[in-house]
């Protein structure tokens, strides 16, 4: 008996940006699987050329309204590397605190508003709020705190205006940051409970052997700096990224996806960071993960919601530590001369590593830009997860199978708006 089925999601919901999924099955085998991206290209790498290097962090922020800080940070680090400037001391700490704010905001958004409804059986967090009001309220309060930290350091939550190459335009007074401590203390408890709560959700028995890639820093959980390492032995300076990551064509589509040279697909993001940096988590986060029975490594992408909870707690504890240690710097920024030449930067966006490279001329104008966002890197892993998952859910009622596929995509918190400007994807519409 032959059975042909089709799983089709015209518009993926609760992801950032616009994409769809088409799966064709015959006799339980996947004949075609396609993650369609119909988000239009915006050509950032094109129009960055000719812009002054000091404008770059403001411009790249506009690639993504969800993680603008990540774009600003990778841009600044790449341009500072080209200039041979290092930002240290309180300015470095402020950047890390800003990144903590973005992680808290982005992870709270995803855990409570975008991902949790899949586990609890709702279309959205608003419907979920009717039955799980306290959970949604807690998520919103955590998200608000993350946004408040970004707004304090960045001027506003979306597209912060206070970040520049070399540091900031204005730095906060100590008491402005200390004011966050009571809410952060609440958040520490709330994030701890989030880990427990998330670990109690129902997870499909699923695991896929893949290469995890993340930054690794000698003594902290990675955000702004570190070497690029992987679960299969990669250990390189970020400047070597393009020598190790290639874009390959896959047989079932005309899409080119990022892959490690000679090995294939890899995954970045919370799971990769956690698996490669468990020993660098804040003490409370490490303890919460252990108490919740979260394995190391964790290879079930559906459990990324628990790992995001752990990182939420880590970011809260880091924020508390950074605020306690903060001393106001003498100047809001380090002077950065024209960074003539090439610079590379890679930082940990909430969704994974975000790589930037710039070549700048003697006039300070950008000659060439290259940006590889995390979702472009995870795209192939998402498809490989689906290839394994689909045959297992093929006999479920179509609605249920479709939902499970959507959930598998949302495991990666994909940001299609980011990825599109760079995804080498064929646009096919039916």
């Amino acid at each position, binding site marked *: 008996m032959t059975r042909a089925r089709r799983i089709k999601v015209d*518009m*993926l*919901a*609760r*992801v*950032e*940006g*616009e994409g769809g999924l088409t799966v064709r099955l015959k006799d339980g085998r996947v004949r075609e699987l396609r993650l369609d991206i*119909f*988000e*239009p*290209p*915006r*050509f*950032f*790498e*094109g*129009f960055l050329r000719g812009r*002054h290097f000091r404008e770059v962090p*403001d*411009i790249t922020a*506009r*690639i*993504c*309204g*969800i993680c*603008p800080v990540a774009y600003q940070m990778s841009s600044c680090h790449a341009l500072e590397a080209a200039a041979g400037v290092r930002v240290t001391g309180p300015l470095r700490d402020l950047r890390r605190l800003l990144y903590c704010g973005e992680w808290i905001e982005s992870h709270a*958004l995803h855990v409570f508003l*975008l991902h949790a*409804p899949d586990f609890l059986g709702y*279309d*959205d*967090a*608003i*419907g979920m*709020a009717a039955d799980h009001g306290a959970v*949604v309220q807690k998520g*919103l309060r955590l*998200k*608000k705190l993350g*946004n408040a930290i970004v707004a304090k350091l960045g*001027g*506003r939550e*979306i*597209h912060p*205006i*206070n970040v*520049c190459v070399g540091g900031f335009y*204005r730095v906060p007074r100590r008491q402005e940051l200390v004011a966050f401590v009571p809410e952060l203390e609440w958040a520490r408890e709330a994030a701890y409970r989030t880990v427990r709560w998330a670990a109690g959700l129902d997870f499909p028995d699923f695991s896929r052997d893949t290469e995890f890639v993340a930054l690794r820093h000698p003594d902290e959980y990675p955000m702004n700096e570190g070497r690029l390492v992987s679960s299969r032995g990669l250990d390189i300076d970020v400047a070597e990224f393009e020598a190790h990551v290639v874009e390959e064509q896959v047989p079932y589509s*005309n899409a*080119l996806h990022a892959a490690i040279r000679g090995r294939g697909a890899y995954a970045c993001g919370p799971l990769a960071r956690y698996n490669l940096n468990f020993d660098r988590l804040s003490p409370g986060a490490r303890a919460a993960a252990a108490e919740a029975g979260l394995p190391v490594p964790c290879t079930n992408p559906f459990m990324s919601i628990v790992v995001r909870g752990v990182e939420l707690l880590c970011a809260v504890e880091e924020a508390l530590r950074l605020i306690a240690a903060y001393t106001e710097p003498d100047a*809001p920024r380090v002077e950065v001369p024209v960074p003539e030449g090439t610079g590379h930067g890679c930082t940990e966006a909430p969704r994974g590593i975000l790589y930037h490279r710039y070549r700048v001329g003697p006039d300070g104008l950008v000659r060439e830009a290259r940006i590889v966002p995390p979702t472009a890197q995870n795209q192939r892993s998402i498809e490989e997860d689906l290839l394994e998952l689909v045959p297992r859910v093929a006999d479920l009622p179509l609605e249920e199978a479709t939902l499970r596929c*959507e959930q598998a995509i949302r495991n990666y918190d994909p940001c299609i*708006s980011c990825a599109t*400007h*760079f995804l*080498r994807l*064929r*646009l096919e*519409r039916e």
Partner: protein
Amino acid sequence: MKRSKPRLAVFKFASCDGCQLTLLDCEDELLAVAGQVDIAYFPEASRAMAPGPYDLALVEGSITTPHDAERILQVRRRARVLVTIGACATAGGIQALRNFADVAEYARAVYPRPEYLETLAWSTPVSSHVPVDLELRGCPIDKGQLLEVISAYLAGRRPNLRRTSVCTECKARGTTCLLVAGGVPCLGPVTQAGCGALCPSYDRGCYGCFGPAESPNPPALAGRLAELGRGPDEVERLFRTFNAWAEAFRGGGRPA
């Protein structure tokens, strides 16, 4: 008698998602808003996607593909009130920089197989394609202004949005003028209020997120910037960033 709640829809075209995220960033008000309207179509937040017609449609993003040029016509047909939100939807956004360049060359620079792309040579605001009932400016939009628009809609009144310049907001909050006192390039005199004069309060010049103010005079500002020693290329870039294709900024400081 219970009146049915107005149906809200949120549509996205070429954009960063930040303006629609502003709605989810209304952490204190989100559930209250959801109680007052029926969120019928908002893919970033919900799997439930109900067909139109909609009472209030918020549209983010600019029109950059042949497909989207068609889609915006359909959105307009299904929306009783259409509000564009943000610099992309109201002015074409940062991606309108292609309007001053060769988009085929951009495509070749970014994509190895540019022939796969379906893209227009222009990034244009929604108002170039369909009638728009209200434009909410900003890159991103301001949360307070978004809530004001939704509240005004629910109350059946006109929203209270200021069309003056950022300068008036600096004066209101008592920020020393960076341009006059420090010679810092600042688009405040020609940019619409709405952000609360954020950048000057952080010791940096305004870079024009909210687009041109009512009756701006970009050439006068460009002249002053030239006197301060800023070269013509720098002045042009200043005007041509997030609202590059807005009519008053399009000339890069030269008369439109």
